[in-house]
């Protein structure tokens, strides 16, 4: 069976997102990956992830279960985690090959090869625990997951074998670039899906459904690209749309009552006003300085040796918000260390940093025309609870009662808008014909 799909790809500075729609404009799959320094690959990986997600949704439907990941049944969760684990192991195998090759190229002896082999074998063993229901992962990207495991294991191994730690780490830093620039194929996923269903202790119903989901032919019928790196997308010019318009339309599709959209992404913050049809009427964004954007939080997380996902929850524990003066990434780092040295608590400083970001966003919102009912918050930072709390507070103080919409899939807003534009272009072609 063949199913045409329309894809929107949002090539952000931090992550690349893909949203796949069917001919009726329903979301059939979503994919996300880190943007790396290679936009072409990021684009292909996000699409492959989107296709994989579409097949999983199809599997759920074949099983007569809800399709959304959040509502997955126990067996759907198990097979989805098994597939993720499989993907992790494939990447690990590729990493192993690359590291051994690097050892050979550098003329390192067998001791090094054994050390690397030992680290990767331990990673393989430990990885199973990451993919059990309820397991907490700091990130879903192979680079981050494998990186933190490797770092920890390399330290012990280096000490045990008397090898220079920095050099053992250096191997990983070089190797991971090659591994993450490999593009996963839909073919491999289809094979893995069938294999996971057959070998994971599932019943015959699951195997049959998996075969049908894997057998589905997904055919790309149209695509539109957007986002910070949109000029680098392998799309023709007319298939590239401004991220402002995509975020406006995406937010409108998620919440049709939307009139004001705030998007805080990695590299920029956008305040957008839309009309009743999701058409942008006005917008403002930060100038060349990315102060107070997602990257700022990433930098702060690094400074505090925390995962990006951990910042918000920690800041939410604050009882006293420290006043932070600068949303400049460089100055904030200095201010952060100064506050720590003065004995301020980490959560209180973090609460202050979140408030500083939102204050900057509030000024852009005011410049764009204020906050109208309803107000939708999108982008990666909308998933951060402390940022949301600060926003709610400041909106209430400055504009009174406003409905604040945040979709659990807010990070996909731009990609959704792009996919809707792709679908509209199809309609335009049909009309013209």
């Amino acid at each position: 069976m063949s199913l045409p799909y329309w894809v929107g790809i949002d090539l952000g500075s931090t992550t690349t997102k893909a949203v796949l729609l069917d001919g009726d404009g329903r979301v059939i799959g979503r994919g996300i990956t880190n943007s790396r320094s290679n936009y072409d690959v990021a684009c292909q990986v996000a699409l492959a992830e989107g296709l994989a997600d579409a097949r999983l949704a199809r599997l759920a439907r074949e099983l007569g279960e809800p399709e959304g990941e959040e509502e997955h049944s126990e067996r759907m969760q198990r097979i989805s985690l098994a597939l993720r684990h499989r993907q992790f192991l494939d990447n690990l195998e590729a990493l192993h090959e690359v590291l051994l090759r690097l050892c050979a190229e550098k003329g390192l002896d067998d001791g090094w090869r054994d050390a690397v082999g030992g680290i990767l074998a331990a990673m393989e063993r430990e990885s199973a625990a990451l993919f059990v229901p309820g397991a907490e992962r700091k990130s879903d990207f192979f680079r981050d997951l494998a990186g933190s495991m490797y770092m920890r294991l390399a330290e012990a191994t280096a000490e045990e074998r008397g090898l220079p730690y920095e050099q053992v780490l250096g191997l990983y830093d070089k190797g991971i670039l090659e591994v993450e620039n490999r593009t996963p194929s839909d073919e491999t996923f289809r094979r893995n899906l069938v294999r996971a269903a057959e070998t994971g202790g599932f019943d015959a119903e699951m195997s049959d459904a998996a075969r049908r989901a894997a057998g589905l032919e997904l055919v790309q019928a149209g695509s539109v690209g957007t986002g910070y790196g949109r000029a680098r997308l392998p799309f023709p010019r007319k298939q590239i749309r401004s991220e402002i318009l995509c975020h406006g339309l995406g937010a409108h599709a998620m919440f049709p009552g939307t009139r004001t959209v705030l998007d805080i992404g990695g590299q920029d913050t956008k305040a957008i006003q839309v009309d009743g049809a999701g058409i942008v009427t006005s917008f403002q964004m930060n100038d060349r300085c990315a102060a107070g954007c997602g990257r700022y939080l990433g930098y702060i997380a690094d400074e505090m040796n925390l995962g990006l996902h951990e910042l918000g929850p920690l800041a939410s524990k604050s009882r006293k918000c420290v006043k932070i003066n600068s949303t400049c990434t460089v100055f904030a780092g200095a201010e952060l260390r100064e506050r720590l040295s003065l004995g301020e608590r980490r959560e209180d400083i973090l609460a202050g940093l979140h408030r500083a970001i939102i204050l900057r966003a509030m000024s852009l919102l005011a410049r764009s025309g204020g906050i109208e009912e309803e107000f939708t918050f999108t982008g990666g930072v909308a998933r951060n609870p402390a940022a949301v709390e600060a926003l709610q507070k400041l909106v209430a103080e400055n504009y009174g009662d406003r409905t604040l919409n945040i979709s659990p899939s807010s990070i996909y807003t731009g990609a959704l808008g792009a996919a809707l534009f792709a679908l509209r272009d199809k309609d335009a072609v049909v009309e013209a014909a």
Partner: protein
Amino acid sequence: MLESGNVGPTGERLPDPDLLLLSYTGCFTFMKWFELLREKYDCPVVMLHVPYQGDGVVTVPMRKYVVDQLRDKVIPVLEQVSGRSYDEDLLRAMLARSAKAEDDLVHVLQAARNRPSPIDAYFGGVYYIGPIFTAFRGTEEAVGYYEALRAEVDERVRLGKGPVTPDGEIPEERYRVVVEGPPNWTSFREFWRMFAEEGAVVVASSYTKVGGVYDLGFRHDPDHPLETLADYCMGCYTNLNLPSRVDMLVRYVEEYQADGLLINSVKSCNSFSAGQLMILREVEKRTGRPGGFIESDLVDPRYFSAANIKNRLESWFQMIDQRRRTA
């Protein structure tokens, strides 16, 4: 250039000034510039204070205030430095030539009312105001330049041709734009290309009026030489109050059938940038056409972020497309 011994882009050395004369109209940053220049050249400095049109009009006392300064402060120093006495007949003759050149300049700028516009009234426009605004005001050369320009532009209108850019002619006029604010001199060509590539033509701009708003009727008047100089200084675009600027921009958007107003807000000139968001909202409200807002600078290259500006410009052009489709 100053530090390298005043050698200009043509390789020729410019002579040191004998006198520095400043009227504050353009931008008050100039006061600081001239303080520095005075230190550098150690020559007489005359500062002509020009009152701001706070209430949107030039009053009789305001005119008298400037004329008195010209007569009592500026002319005596000029006489002293040059060793020549003030010749009012010569000034009248220059003002008459200036007015003639101004007629032709207005004709050229208003040619942008045609579809397609034969000129770009911002990126191209700064070349057109150059001879009048800088060195050649009141000269025969300026008169000749504007005659030739007028003929060339009329010919382009006759042929139905659009503007010429450094990269060639714009094949199709897709957007008609009014621009407020100075251009980005440090990345001028790259900035222009962002418009040209999208088929965006600037049909009117406020920056080309910092040397006089001739298209709104002002002409140098040889019969009242000092008064007309005073009116000129007080009537330059950046000396107008915000309501007058809004009126002018609304008029441009409508008369030149523009798709909307774009503001290039620069960091280094408060005379332009203060109040621009209010201007944007007002013009949007009164014309019903979407406004665009970009930020850069006229002199500091660090404020020019090509990716950011391109992003906003593309978004704005696509906004206009969307409006057209749903209109």
